[in-house]
């Protein structure tokens, strides 16, 4: 039946890979070879990107706002630190997964508090949980090292074969591999019926329930998955920097994440990645120009983004690449940023 296959074709429209996406990942990979002296900042961007992607999963797809996403980042960070420090799980990849699972357990447990209530309640509850964990980490200093943080972490080689080097090269490619794999997974999930049902819930929870979607169950599922992602991001932080201190739970960390998504946009997975790059770049540039007032300029940029509108900015940014692509590949191959109005 042609109408049926037509429907199938269009239903998979967004799930298909676009040229722009392939180009994006090739560029990221190329950066690893092009800037051998900048591994540390680039690794930092990758971690932030993964962390932001985690928030995008709940904010951009399911519409759950959070000001305490650092809670999961922090649990992942400390878990990875403790596992390495005490030699419980010394192989980094396995430790990464275990740390992610620890954050996931917390995510599942707290999801019941978060799904009830509206946006404002959610902001307060998530913020509260992060603050609570920060206080607990400080209180149980015999485990966490208190304000000094975990010290003397020594990372074993990845898969027992690739050691972390002092330039951060191994750390960068390790982080990139983790980010890419988790991106692939997330991409798969958001284009499934489950992912679509999340967008439906974000759009209209009343109607979502009225077509038979178990709204709460779906929200718990995605919140738990996002906690895993954030935990892995936190674990990457500890593994690539060999420190875990109280600031992994800091409010600024959760708040920065919101800014990253404001810059990059939500609901198309690349928002966190693009936003992380731009956010860190802006931070770098402004703190070089005016070390004391860089936050002022970041603030100004955010105001401009909100006022001008992200979609228009994207059109301007993509104007030149599209001009080139159109010459080479004809009209159809235009790089566009699919985006819901955030």
């Amino acid at each position, binding site marked *: *039946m042609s*109408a*049926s*296959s*037509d*429907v*199938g*074709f*269009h*239903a*998979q*429209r967004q*799930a298909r890979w676009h040229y722009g996406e392939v180009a994006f990942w090739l560029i990221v990979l190329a950066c690893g070879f092009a800037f051998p002296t900048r591994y540390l900042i680039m690794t930092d961007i990758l971690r932030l990107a993964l962390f932001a992607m985690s928030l995008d999963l709940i904010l951009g797809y399911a519409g759950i706002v959070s000001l305490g996403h650092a809670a999961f980042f922090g649990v992942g960070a400390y878990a990875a630190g403790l596992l390495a420090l005490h030699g419980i799980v010394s192989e980094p990849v396995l430790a990464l997964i275990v740390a992610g699972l620890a954050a996931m357990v917390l995510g599942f447990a707290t999801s019941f508090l978060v799904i009830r209530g509206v946006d404002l309640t959610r902001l307060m509850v998530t913020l509260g949980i992060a603050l609570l964990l920060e206080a607990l980490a400080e209180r149980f200093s015999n485990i966490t090292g208190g304000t000094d943080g975990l010290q003397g972490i020594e990372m074993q080689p990845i898969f027992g074969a690739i050691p972390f080097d002092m330039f951060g090269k191994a750390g960068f490619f390790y982080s990139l591999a983790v980010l890419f794999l988790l991106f692939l997974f997330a991409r*798969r*999930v958001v*284009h*499934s*019926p*489950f*992912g*679509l*049902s999340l*967008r*439906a819930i974000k*759009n*209209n929870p*009343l*109607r979502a*329930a*009225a*077509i*038979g*979607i*178990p*709204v709460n*169950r*779906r929200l718990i*599922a995605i919140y738990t998955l996002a906690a895993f992602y954030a935990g892995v991001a936190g674990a990457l932080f500890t593994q690539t920097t060999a420190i875990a201190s109280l600031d992994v739970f800091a409010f600024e960390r959760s708040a920065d994440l919101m800014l990253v998504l404001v810059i990059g946009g939500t609901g198309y997975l690349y928002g966190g990645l693009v936003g992380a790059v731009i956010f860190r770049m802006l931070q770098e540039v402004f703190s070089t120009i005016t070390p004391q007032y860089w936050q002022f300029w970041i603030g100004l940029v955010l105001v401009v983004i909100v006022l001008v509108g992200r979609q228009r900015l994207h059109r301007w940014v993509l104007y030149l690449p599209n001009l080139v692509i159109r010459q080479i590949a004809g009209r159809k191959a235009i790089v566009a940023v699919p985006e*819901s*109005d955030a």
Partner: protein
Amino acid sequence: MTIVLETQNLEKQFGGLRVTRDLSLKIEQGARHALIGPNGAGKTTVINQLTGVLKPNSGRILLEGQDITDLPVHKRVLRGLSRTFQINQLYPDLTPLETIGLAVSERLGHGGDWWRRMGTRSDVNGEIADLLAGFHLLDVMNEQTVTLPYGKQRLLEIAVAIAAKPRVLLLDEPAAGVPESERHDILAVVGALPRDVTVLLIEHDMDLVFSFADRISVLVSGALLTEGPPEQVARDPQVKAVYLGEEAVNV
């Protein structure tokens, strides 16, 4: 005849206000049943209790003989009770294709499927295609819902409810707000609903009610005033007095 949907002594209060008073309704299999009443009679409150959005203070709701009073909304849908809303409740950012696709997926139990991509199941695709065609939505299936004309959105609203393959369909003022030019499509679609689907219609439009319904219940101040076939209700002096005023009704 078998009764598919029944309420027994349904009672709902908002604070001191009794919005549903001791309401016992029986809807027969395959019926075209209309629930009418003046503004504020509590019609939508009844629908909200039937679908599970609101919980009654007392009384029971039976779907095909089984007590569903305590079931959450989504479970009633899976049991075969589906509804449309008086004011469109759609997903502004999603396309008709996605909207209907999701409803079909949920019904077939694929809604929680988080690995397989949307659009790769041929049985789901086939159903989506049939529904889109049946509701004149094929040409706009990739447009964002928010950009569709109101009439199309109204059709989508009904299509989504039908996609759940309901045994009982609750239509809450299906033609409300639809411009005259697009009204015909809606009425045709409502008229062409399969006979095995039982329909409970809530409507202000008397032409629609009397052309569509084979049984009418009149609700006044939350209580059942009278019930019967259209001719009888139209002649009922009580109904004329409280609801239709003194005007005569064309049957």
